[in-house]
């Protein structure tokens, strides 16, 4: 008993030491290394970087004054009444330009095509992103899809830096009707191309979303293709 007392206090010191490390490390990492630096130094996206997880998970679904999801005690956010479904197809509105300030991207959009085998063709010009006309017009209810090359035959292409995006980053799409729609990144994810999440990308959504797609992972030199796709999911603000 007597001999165990020093042993246990030594262990206690050890435990406190570990404990202190346990408490200190994440906090220190968060404050010392800013989001950009932390992001670049590792492949991980710190999930709670710019916005709080709660605000990232529960942004308001519609535009207008209901942008706050006010906590109790403050003025609560306002929920809007849903508009009626349009009785005729609206005039053809097209997205014209994609802007992503975080990676200094501002490029006009081309229109993507689906080939004879129902595969989505990448943009013709590796320097330009392309919009999939079978999906939503960015800013309308539904999922808008924009794909861009990670690299060309010669080197980096338009979406080379797409993996630098972090949750909360802004993405803007200009439209032919003069509107400019702001989105906020909600998720950055790399997926095995053999298990592409079709429903997540093209499936119905009740809110106004944007999906940016490029290639990622390792390059298969034998077959001349990247093994993964990188998906950036964003929600209209």
């Amino acid at each position, binding site marked *: 008993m007597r001999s165990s007392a020093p042993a246990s206090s030594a262990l206690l010191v050890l*435990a406190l030491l570990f404990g202190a490390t346990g408490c200190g490390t994440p906090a220190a990492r968060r404050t010392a290394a800013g989001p950009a630096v932390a992001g670049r130094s590792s492949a991980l996206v710190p999930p709670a970087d710019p916005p709080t997880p709660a605000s990232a998970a*529960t942004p308001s679904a519609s535009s207008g004054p209901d942008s706050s999801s006010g*906590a109790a005690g403050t003025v609560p956010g306002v929920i809007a009444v849903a508009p009626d479904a349009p*009785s005729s197809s609206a005039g053809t509105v097209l997205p014209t330009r994609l802007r992503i300030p975080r990676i200094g991207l501002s490029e006009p959009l081309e229109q993507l095509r689906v080939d004879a085998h129902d595969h989505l063709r990448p943009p013709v010009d590796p320097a330009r992103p392309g919009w999939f006309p079978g999906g939503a017009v960015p800013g309308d209810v539904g999922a808008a899809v924009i794909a861009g090359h990670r690299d060309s035959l010669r080197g980096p292409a338009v979406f080379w830096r797409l993996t630098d995006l972090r949750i909360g980053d802004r993405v803007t799409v200009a439209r032919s009707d003069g509107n400019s729609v702001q989105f906020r990144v909600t998720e950055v994810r790399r997926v095995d191309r053999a298990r592409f999440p079709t429903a997540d990308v093209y499936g119905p959504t009740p809110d106004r979303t944007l999906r940016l797609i490029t290639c990622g992972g390792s*390059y298969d030199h034998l077959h001349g293709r990247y093994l993964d796709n990188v998906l950036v999911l964003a929600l209209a603000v």
Partner: protein
Amino acid sequence: MTTSPAPASRPRPARSPVAAPPLLRVLVAMLLGGGLLVLVAPGNALAASRPGYVRLAHLSPDTPQVDVWLTSFRGHSFSKVLPGVGYGALSTYQRLAPGVYSVAMRPPGGSGSSDPLIRTTVRVQSGKAYTVAGVGRNSDLALRVLTDDLSRPPSGQARVRVVQASSLVPLVDVATTTGLSIASGARFPSTTAYADVPAQQWTLRATPRDSSAQAAEQTVQVQAGGIYTALVLDNGSSGLQLQVKVDAAGSSTTPLGSVDTGLGGAAGLTRPDAPSSLGRLPVGVLLVGLVGLVAGAVLLVARRPSTRAR
């Protein structure tokens, strides 16, 4: 206030073996702390990925205007209100973190803590959508949670369902003017199954079974991949009213598989990659949690012989 068998141990807790509880408390706290770090961190990382959706509706014909509140059940970290809505109002979907939420109808202008007219809870699951509707006559007003199906319709088609909220007639048929049936004999108050319809412009007609009330028509552009709700309502002058809402919109055609957006010209250059589904777990936090667990476990094991020896 019973007498402790070992009151003498109190003045010198540091040395005595009876001081084990404080030490144990530290150990247990560490164990729990480590475990919680391991458990909580991945949960947070994944939470933002798949939200659920809730929308609110006032479908009680003789219930006056109300405020409809949507509040997270615990902690009130989410609280929003659909203010001053009358019969026939349907809100936009609210994107929510999965969890339990409270829906309450209150007299207009009341605070979020005032007594509700009626209240219910809805358990929001990841990737699921719900409509919480005040239904029935005011005398038997009830909040009903409808599960909405926002999964993909068959290629080239859309899905339409009917919410029958007209109290004028017990049974209503809804069909296109060309005779394609959407719902047959929908009863007040109820919601029907989804019907697949080809994507095009349709005029929908709601016809009462017993023809005592006027029928109603509404023209709608139905988009492929879209999901719609047709609301059958009283029009206030012994007739029906038909409103069509877009629940969700999807791609009109769905490409197969992935997108070939790389030609390999920069394959030799290093580039920080996006996290894969597994890589999303914050490894640093996991490690810290594991270290806490191991340290806690080691200490517990180290303690055990001494307590037995006593």
